[in-house]
């Protein structure tokens, strides 16, 4: 039972997220979070069987509350706090490269973060079934301009100016699994310069 789905009603393909649940068949639980995701990991940890072995990587200092203390209190084989996204991804990759079959990866955090970490899992050979994700905290979206492919993290407005090509683009509900980003398309193609009201939609 995957923890997320991609509903295919017309053009919408926005993932639906559910709270993380432990996969009790697994032998080793590798848990990764940023910001508000700490709470989700703590909840997940409570549901693990007592004898389960687990390891935590946490990115502190990103948006949202710092859950480092909360996670350090959990009974876990290893808990590591990182201050840099790339450093965390490296540490995760190294741990996965040494991990055995029977491992599950759980990721909690903003949408850009969870799909970046899920991609690390996939590149180490993990299948969808072995990677569980939960979105926590901000609804800000990772977006990619379909015209120039420039990626922007944490878009909170319905329309933004693409830093790559300078076009005004709108963030569609179409999420690309492969890029881990929503697709943005030009809004004023018909009448250049005529923009609908800009609103803060994804906070």
């Amino acid at each position, binding site marked *: 039972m995957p923890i997320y789905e991609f509903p295919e009603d017309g053009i919408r393909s926005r993932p639906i997220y559910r709270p993380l649940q432990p996969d009790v*068949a*697994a*032998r*080793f639980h590798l848990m990764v979070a940023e910001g508000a995701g700490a709470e989700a990991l703590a909840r997940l940890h409570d549901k693990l069987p007592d004898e389960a072995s687990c390891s935590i990587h946490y990115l502190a200092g990103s948006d949202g509350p710092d859950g480092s203390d909360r996670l350090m209190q959990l009974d876990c084989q290893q808990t590591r706090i990182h201050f840099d996204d790339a450093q965390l991804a490296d540490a995760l990759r190294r741990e*996965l*490269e040494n*991990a*055995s*079959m*029977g*491992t*599950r990866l759980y990721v909690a955090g903003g949408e850009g973060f969870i799909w970046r970490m899920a991609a690390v899992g996939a590149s*180490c*050979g*993990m*299948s*969808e*079934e*072995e990677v569980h994700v939960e979105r926590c905290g901000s609804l800000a979206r990772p977006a990619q301009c379909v015209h120039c492919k420039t990626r922007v993290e944490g878009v909170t407005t319905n329309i933004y100016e693409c830093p790559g090509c300078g076009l005004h683009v709108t963030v569609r509900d179409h999420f690309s699994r492969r890029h881990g980003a929503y697709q943005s398309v030009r809004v004023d193609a018909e009448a250049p310069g005529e923009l609908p009201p800009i609103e803060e939609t994804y906070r």
Partner: protein
Amino acid sequence: MTGQANIPVRVARIEQITPMIRRFTLERSDGGTLPGFSGGSHVVVTMRGEERTHHNPYSLMGSPDDKQRYQISVRRDDDGRGGSLFMHQKVAEGDTLEVSPPTNLFALNPLAERHILIAGGIGITPFMAQLHELRRAGADYQMHYAFRDQENAAFRDELEAACGDRLTAYDGSAGQFVQPAQLLGEQPLGTHVYVCGPKGMIEAVNEAAFELGWADSHVHWEEFAAPPVGKPFRVVLQKSGMEITVPGASSVLEALEDAGLQPNCLCRGGVCGECETAVVEGEIEHNDHFLPDDVKQSNSRMMICVSRARSERVVLDL
């Protein structure tokens, strides 16, 4: 026979591999090329005997690159339903048979970081084709092959030549057996296991994988269980109003085919789901690996390729 038409083939060569196993090389009767396939595919061979027609699935074991010929191996089963005996006793070089286009229900996962292949006896055949693909891709793989004794170690030399030290052989008569828990323990992420062989071996591998926390999508198995032999019974086809008898050594599917019908089917082994049929009336003895337990208990559906009636009569929604 779902969709595509059968292909007439000529038996170009028959080799006695072990006392029980023969390899058949098949070429298109009209001299043309055969449809391409991927390792793990099978074809259904139609054998038109005097008393009855047999339809048996066999794995393709030649190179997927070879479009001139297909190779299959048949293990003689003296207590079986007659298909393998027909292949051994009635089929000679130069004869004509029909094969279905290939279907693959046991494909390699191209994203796997490592492949562990486990074969028991004649279960080696699908791997013979897959090994071509693995070697061409330079993939990381291990081939584990268990057989009863040296005399029954079919294709051992070919495997040794192909796999070198990636092959581990297990001679049952020397007390050597595959230890699934050992083979599957401590494997890196992205490992996939594939098993083809007797039921007990498939179960042991599945159990070990489950115990070690492997995700289901990394465990692949293929069992060519022939439909079990049982008591004859009557089948009533509600829609077409036909009524036929299923003989003890035929499946419902085969009896329907003999009556000139063409029900959907692919694997003929109760795994693919293609032949699922609604049951209007009657009690079913389920022999498939497809239907969920609660559906089986409700007697509302059956897989007509392997399951039989427990009652004297069943009514199907056909």
